[in-house]
């Protein structure tokens, strides 16, 4: 693959890593199957798009994240106050957000950000645009990871982690898990919406379908990262989410670089992902095979004595 395609894959991987990190918070830390992602991603992109088109790129990014947090709070309220099943609560919010997003975009399904000031054009300094963009995205991903790591060491963060591990225990300790759920979902969807905002400015347009498949994408990145980076600690998981997302985009770019017919692309990328994820299992089988072989030789030697 070419350098442009590789750098592009890195850029996109870092942008989507925020989705993986958001899903890390909801699926892994909070242990809630949150389906709001498709909607909150688009919401972040839509709010950011409208504000950026109006000439406020930085405000757009901020407002996009806050909007995502609000979406998370709505899902949280559905779960805690109205006792809606977590998965259904996420789906309800996601479905409702479709209309909200169209409303935010003023009835249009497509906002263009070509030739407007964005975070990336603002950060253009001594470095060429591509290098500057990559550095900026690396910095953002790093700051988010650092922020999450520090947050989960605080009291509130520990409450959230405890709620995800053992909700009954948290109740018994006199802490209200509902607050933890609300904060956790707000954080998760805020990150996902931030990703949407960054993507809208990166590709210079925002469309209503921009968020379709974010749950699948995020989970795939998360699991690839977990499998390849491993480790039980929070730091490993955070690193894994980012690494998984970047690797997933690189695999997609590699699939594109191989000259395969257009309609086979998704099959090839699925196979590549499967191959990447099955490396540990294959390694284990190889180790068992080696053991057996060694055992067999040992048996032969002892027989011939």
């Amino acid at each position: 693959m070419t350098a442009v395609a590789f750098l592009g894959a890195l850029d996109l991987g870092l942008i989507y890593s925020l989705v993986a990190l958001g899903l890390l918070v909801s699926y892994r830390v909070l242990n809630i199957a949150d389906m709001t992602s498709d909607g909150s991603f688009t919401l972040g992109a839509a709010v950011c798009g409208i504000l950026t088109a109006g000439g406020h790129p930085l405000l757009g990014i901020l407002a996009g994240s806050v909007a995502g947090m609000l979406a998370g709070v709505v899902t949280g309220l559905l779960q805690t106050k109205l006792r809606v099943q977590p998965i259904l609560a996420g789906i309800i919010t996601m479905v409702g957000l479709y209309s909200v997003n169209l409303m935010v975009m003023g009835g249009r399904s497509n906002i263009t950000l070509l030739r407007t000031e964005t975070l990336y054009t603002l950060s253009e300094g001594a470095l060429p645009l591509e290098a500057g963009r990559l550095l900026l995205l690396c910095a953002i991903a790093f700051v988010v990871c650092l922020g999450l790591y520090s947050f989960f060491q605080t009291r509130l963060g520990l409450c959230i982690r405890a709620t995800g591990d053992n909700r009954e225990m948290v109740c018994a300790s006199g802490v209200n898990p509902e607050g933890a759920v609300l904060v956790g979902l707000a954080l998760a969807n805020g990150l996902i919406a931030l990703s949407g905002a960054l993507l809208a400015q990166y590709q210079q347009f925002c469309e209503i379908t921009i968020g379709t498949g974010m749950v699948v994408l995020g989970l795939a990145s998360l699991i690839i990262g977990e499998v390849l980076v491993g480790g039980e600690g929070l730091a490993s998981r955070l690193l894994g989410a980012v690494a998984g997302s970047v690797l997933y985009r690189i695999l997609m770019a590699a699939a594109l670089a191989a000259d395969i017919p257009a309609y086979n692309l998704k099959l090839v990328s699925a196979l590549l992902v499967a191959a990447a994820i099955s490396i540990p299992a294959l390694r284990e089988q190889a180790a068992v095979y080696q053991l057996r072989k060694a055992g067999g030789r040992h048996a032969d030697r002892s027989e011939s004595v």
Partner: protein
Amino acid sequence: MKKIIALATALLLLCTGCSTKTAPSSSQGAQKQKIGVIQLLEHPSLDEVRAAILEELKVQGYDESKVEIQYQSAQNDGTLANSINQKFVGDQVDVIIAIGTSVAQSAAASTGEIPIVFAAVTDPEQAGLLTCLDQPEGNITGTSDAIPVEKIFALADELTPGIQRYGFLYNPGEDNSVVTVEAAKAYLDGKGIDYVEATATNVGEVTQAAQSLTGKEIDAIFVPIDNTVAGAMPNVAQIAIEAELPCYVAADSLVNDGGLATVGVNYTQLGKQTGQMVAKVLAGTPISEIPVEILRENQVVVNPETARALGIDVSQYTEN
């Protein structure tokens, strides 16, 4: 150990062809020009455009010996569209052909140098692709399939006079549909004709939306160039016939799938015009000298079977 393997995998992928290609190496003397074609999704109308573009390129003299054509479909996946355009830019293609609004926007964001020729973008100005249609100021030009709604309604008046209320069926998430419906509403407001609408956000919802329309006391259905409804057009046509409602559409392929009639964009013609523009780009004409073309040649296309089922006389429009 597993980190080493992960690193090795990543490096292996890097080595599979990671190169800063400066110039295409060629054993022959003449270098082939490269074209990157990106299509929004697989869809009869868009496929028709692509086929016509490639055909026209051959007619203009750009066949396999002179050009290398890469075709990728974004499969309606925005994440993929960005990666595909980055690939084309990295491969330093000579021109990018983008079929569909969002893939054209993605291409425009990926490069400001490589010429981009878009096809089937209903409103290029709205999409932000360019501001001056007659003299494109950047690296982008192309063809637009803006729909002449007034001609369609005039045809409707002719074939089934006395329509008091139209029912619009479309996906509000598709910009091309929203633009066309807005134009239609403006026209109908001017004529004092009423309208209602039913929307569907994905192919699965189209049937229910169409059924709900039939219960709203309308005299005719109108479907713009909507990719979502197009996916379920045979169903819609069936429901319309059963409710004895004429279904006026905005694209030929929708008529083929059962719509009654259209004064439509002929996507083969659109593709042909796009192909001619691409040929000009390949020959070296600067983009600023290739204005955006809106298809003006519209032709009436009718579906005789649907007409027969509804008892409408379309003999003057059916060929021989």
